[in-house]
């Protein structure tokens, strides 16, 4: 398993952001759904080795992120896009992705090809030499995704990756996710249930720091059948039904 978490908790000040998450994820696309403040971002930050757990056990890519040496090895095989990534506006798209390729210690001879491939995969080949300050919000999001995938990560963590993308870009992005999930573990945090339905093989639903549902998108859909749960689509009704049940 590429991700094994047991009873993982994280306290941020007085808030229990993650309250005992147990999770195992292997290759494929895992969608992390949940309302605002459910703990998705905190969980993702722990999986990205940004945040240390307060308690519990975590193993990533068969390594212990708490061990300095193993953490370095994990990070080389990791791709991460946070909710609000930063950009240096005077960099070009290629500069930005190349910077991360070099930081991630991709062998020097492979860097130009890896950068070009990542930029092409997010559909920015024609903007490769454009400065970041000239790009739209959706394009910047795709640049962020390119830096996350430039090292062909075995574990890819994406926090709200489709925020700011137009419908056409989102459709293309879901195809990219499915493609990446063939060879890697991809964990996507999102509010958008349609992204999960279209791209994810597994889905987890978080509420108040806990995972209250884990299964396939079809299983989540079935949880909403025959109920009066709110939602315009079957998956949304499943989402609402599980949340209502968890809070009852």
């Amino acid at each position: 398993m590429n991700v094994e978490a047991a009873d993982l908790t994280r306290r941020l000040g007085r808030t229990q952001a993650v309250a005992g998450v147990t999770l195992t994820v292997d290759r494929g696309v895992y969608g992390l759904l949940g309302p605002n403040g459910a703990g998705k971002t905190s969980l993702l930050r722990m999986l990205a080795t940004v945040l240390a757990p307060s308690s519990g056990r975590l193993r990533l890519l068969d390594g212990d992120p708490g061990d300095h040496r193993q953490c370095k090895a994990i990070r080389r095989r990791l791709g991460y896009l946070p909710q609000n990534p930063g950009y240096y506006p005077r960099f070009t798209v290629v500069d930005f992705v190349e910077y991360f390729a070099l930081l991630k210690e991709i062998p020097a001879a492979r860097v130009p090809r890896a950068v070009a491939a990542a930029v092409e995969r997010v559909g920015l080949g024609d903007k490769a030499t454009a400065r970041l300050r000239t790009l739209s919000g959706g394009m910047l999001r795709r640049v962020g995704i390119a830096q996350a995938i430039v090292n062909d990560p075995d574990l890819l963590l994406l926090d709200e990756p489709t925020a700011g993308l137009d419908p056409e870009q989102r459709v293309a992005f879901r195809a990219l996710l499915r493609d990446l999930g063939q060879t890697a573990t991809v964990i996507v945090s999102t509010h958008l249930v349609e992204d999960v339905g279209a791209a994810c093989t597994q889905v987890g639903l978080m509420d108040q720091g806990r995972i209250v549902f884990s299964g396939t998108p079809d299983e989540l859909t079935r949880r909403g059948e025959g109920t009066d749960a709110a939602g315009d689509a079957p998956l949304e009704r499943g989402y609402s039904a599980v949340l209502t049940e968890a809070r009852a």
Partner: protein
Amino acid sequence: MSVEAAARSRLLSLFLAGRRVPAALAAVAVAAITLHLALYRPWNTYGALQLPLIVEAACAAAIAGTLASPFGEPERVAGSRLPFLRSTMVVGLTAAAACALAVATVGVPLSGGVAALVRNLVGFVGLGLLCAAAVGGGLAWTGPVTYLILGVYALYTQWHGPALTTPWVWPGRPGHDPGAALCAGVVFAIGLAVYTWRGARE
């Protein structure tokens, strides 16, 4: 140059560009020229000690402006080369600023001498590094600027006692004072170690 060496050089140049190091170097150059031109003017003893201190603090504030990362968490988890890049940048910029200021004082009278100038600069930069780690890269400049006020006050107390004589307020001590140099050096070393290891707080 081998492919690996070229890649390391490219990484360093991208890192420095992303930290706005060229702008910091330009600010240091402007500060050095200002100091050189200002030292041609006649100053009373108090003003002659105060002026270089203000320029040293300005240089340290410019260096502190490079400590914040524009890239956030993805950079922090992107590998193990960041500590080397951070320390190279800080040491290089501090050395460049010290050289620029020292060159700016050639042929003009400098109260306290070059030793005091370098000591004060190194201490100011150390405070900027500690501030970056404690309150964030965006506010790192507050360390040197706040300490400048203390330094100016320490100089003032030399004429209006009781004088501040602790070596931790190094601007008030003469350039050849080893205790003051040690204190400034310790602050720089601790600041550099903390910043190299953890980077600026986000």
